[in-house]
């Protein structure tokens, strides 16, 4: 089973034009900032929003095309929403059985089919409760059971974890991973959280301003981001430039020495923890040394993330101890150095 989608739709001032396909048993994460059009794409896939152009095809079945629009209720799909959207007036069992009932299954049969699913998501004892009596994590698991119970060909997940608190999110993410591994159809996960994408998806497409800016496996995305947004998400500083031997001439000015030869338009990616800061120009003349100014510092776990401005804008992570010892504060002039071997270079 394969989902092939090319979604073209205008939402206010945002023009969305996104194309991807999701294979059998594959989980595709659509990663992007808020307002990038991710949820719009998902609503088109669900049939809740008519596309302006493009097509949605599941195996040989055309769900959307220029002359065809299959309404949402006739699509074999399950959808999990950010805030579960369990029907407040129905019990958990009735919620899970809802899709079976509306597709014509008898009440008793539907309940009997729903109950094993409650068991699978660990809610066997809570079937008679109302959604209002469940915790956020329990409700989201019930919503997952409700989406999966009919064995749909396509599973759509719209920010399924972002309404949960951090601890619950961890548990539900693990459980979601398990169910997604078992799921035989095509799954599309919309998220703005790179950890969700990395943990749950087989492939990731990054969407910004309604366009796919990068696609690949989670590892590729993490190692070789192609936009500032992705680089920030995965904790890298991205410097676009032109390779010439063991040097990259940055588009914004300045030279970066690298370990391998590079040619043509490339990205140089630097991890903040590989940037060292000094008050005086360091001795031994390392090749990558720049005089910069500290513009902002924010605590980040055990380190302090320092935003630096100058010829080569960088981000450096220094330990809280060093930060204090160096007497750093916004406005202070520093020297930053990075070993050439610590810089990743890849084609643009």
């Amino acid at each position, binding site marked *: 089973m394969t989902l092939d989608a090319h979604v073209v739709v205008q939402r206010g001032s945002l023009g969305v034009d996104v194309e991807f396909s999701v294979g059998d048993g594959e989980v595709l994460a659509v990663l992007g900032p808020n307002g990038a059009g991710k949820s719009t794409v998902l609503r088109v896939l669900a049939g*809740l929003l008519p596309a302006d152009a493009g097509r949605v095809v599941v195996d040989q079945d055309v769900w959307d095309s220029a002359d065809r629009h299959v309404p949402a209720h006739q699509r074999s799909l399950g959808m999990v929403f950010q805030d579960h959207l369990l029907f*407040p007036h129905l019990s958990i069992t009735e919620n899970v059985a*809802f*899709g079976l*009932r*509306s597709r014509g299954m008898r009440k008793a049969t539907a309940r009997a089919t729903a109950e094993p699913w409650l068991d699978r998501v660990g809610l066997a004892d809570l079937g008679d409760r109302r959604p209002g*009596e469940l915790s956020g994590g329990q409700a989201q698991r019930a919503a997952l059971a*409700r989406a999966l119970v009919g064995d749909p060909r396509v599973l759509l997940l719209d920010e399924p974890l972002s309404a949960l608190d951090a601890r619950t999110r961890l548990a539900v993410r693990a459980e979601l991973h398990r169910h997604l591994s078992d799921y035989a159809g095509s799954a599309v996960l919309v998220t703005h959280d790179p950890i969700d994408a990395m943990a749950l998806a087989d492939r990731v497409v990054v969407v910004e301003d309604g366009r796919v800016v990068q696609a690949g496996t989670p590892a590729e995305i993490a190692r070789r981001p192609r936009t500032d947004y992705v680089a920030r998400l995965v904790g890298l500083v991205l410097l676009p430039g032109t390779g010439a031997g063991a040097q990259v001439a940055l588009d914004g000015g300045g030279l970066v020495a690298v370990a391998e030869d590079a040619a043509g338009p490339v990205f140089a990616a630097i991890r903040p923890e590989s940037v060292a800061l000094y008050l005086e120009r360091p001795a031994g003349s390392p090749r990558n040394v720049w005089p910069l100014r500290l513009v902002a510092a924010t605590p980040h776990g055990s380190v302090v993330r320092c935003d630096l401005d100058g010829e080569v804008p960088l981000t450096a992570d220094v330990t809280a101890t060093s930060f204090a010892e160096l007497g750093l504060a916004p406005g202070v002039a520093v020297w930053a150095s990075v070993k050439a071997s610590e810089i990743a270079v890849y084609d643009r």
Partner: protein
Amino acid sequence: MRARGNGGVPLPLLVPAALAVAFLVLPLAGLVVRAPWSTIGPQLAQQEVGQALRLSLLSATLATGVSLLLGVPLAWVLARSRIRGRSVLRALVTVPLVLPPVVGGVALFLVIGRTGILGRPLYEHLGVTVPFTTAAVVIAETFVAMPFLVISVEGALRAADARFEDAAATLGADRWTTFRRVTLPLVAPGIAAGAVLCWARALGEFGATITFAGNFPGTTQTMPLAVYLALQRDPEAAIVLSLVLLAVSLGTLLLLRDRWLGRGPGQGVAA
């Protein structure tokens, strides 16, 4: 709990609220004080009183039923559909709210009266006349009261989270099933409130009823009509009749309210 001495109501709200209560309740108190309690027994025993009361309750309930049957779907169309000219439609269906009821009664004549647009063929071909029948009472009351229901239910539908309907659609429910199994239960409290408003308005309906349905004991004379005519002859009798109408309607509303409140928790509508 922030309840203190005055129940936690700030003074700038408490004073006007108290005035509002006085304004609404004092006329009622006036009726009670002026009621001829010594003769109330014989007054109530009159056959017409029971007849008018029964007819009032029956016709108001039927009018509410008709309003629910037609008004809830209309409210859905106003709140959810994407048909053109919706705002014009909304303005049109609320016309009975501003139309003097007597004019409403005349307008009903012009449509389903014996010489009306629809009424004439009905009369000429089937020999059916609508005015001066109990059905006419129900029609007049429905005409005047249904907008109250439509407006309440439309408001409830707009306030309800339409994404529940999206969720239902992704679960294979067509729009009718979604309406029946999701939307309707979600807005049930709004529908109930609208039905109460509608029923109360129908129960007190006078102008359109006396115009379109006329006034005949047992057939079309509802309590408000009986009260009005009693007023011509014997104001005290009118007070007694008004109190009966008030007592019965208040009693009914309180009874229904208890039933709803008795439905227990788990009713919380998700925001």
